[in-house]
């Protein structure tokens, strides 16, 4: 399931629902990304999507994950709009029979989301407003899946 939403979500409730829906899985890995405060210098993060295109890209990444690992379920919930420090941005959870498939697929999907997902990100803080692009480390993390 993929949800791109412009209102806050509760990751605990979402993860509980995912866990219930995958009661046959032996392993569930989840990742929660939230807005970093950068020791007070960030006040707001704003994310923008291209409706249709953004979701199709994530769906493609989920399909690739399902091809690469044996999964019983995947959920990706991603926020758009304005978010304050500490607010959840993204929740990815993967369920599998065994833990390795759950760990690796969750990591893979997060690397996709950090580097290729069609989102634009604007940070507002003490130093003004700027549009953010992936860091070199993000691309390096994502590239390793080509050789793993």
């Amino acid at each position, binding site marked *: 399931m993929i949800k791109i939403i412009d209102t806050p979500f509760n990751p605990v409730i979402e993860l509980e629902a995912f866990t219930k829906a995958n009661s046959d899985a032996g392993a569930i890995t989840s990742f929660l990304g939230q807005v970093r405060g950068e020791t007070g210098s960030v006040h707001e993060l704003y994310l*923008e999507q*291209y409706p249709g*295109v953004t979701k199709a890209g994530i769906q493609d990444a989920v399909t690739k994950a399902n091809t690469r690992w044996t999964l019983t379920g995947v959920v990706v919930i991603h926020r758009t709009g304005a978010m304050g420090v500490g607010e959840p941005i993204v929740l990815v959870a993967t369920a599998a029979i065994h833990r390795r498939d759950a760990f690796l697929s969750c990591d893979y999907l997060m690397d996709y*989301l950090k580097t290729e997902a069609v*989102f634009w*990100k*604007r940070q507002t803080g003490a130093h003004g407003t700027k*549009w953010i*692009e*992936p860091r070199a480390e993000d691309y390096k993390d994502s590239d390793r899946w080509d050789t793993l």
Partner: protein
Amino acid sequence: MIKILYFGRLHESAGRRAETMALPEGVTTISALKHWLNTAHELDGALDDPSVKTMINQALVHADIPLNGDEEIGFLPPVGGG
């Protein structure tokens, strides 16, 4: 009518997120449309920047293709990731 969408920093430069218009007179290709919009919105050539991708009807295009006048056209600066 064509629908034009500007994303990320481009919507700030263009002063709008979207606009709907008939193809301007003499504009028949995506390249010509970009040139026209660069001038009309004083974008200083931003739409021709190699880092800006163009989508027509939600599919990436790399060539200068003809326009019918009823497309959805998206201009995408580098994505920021989630």
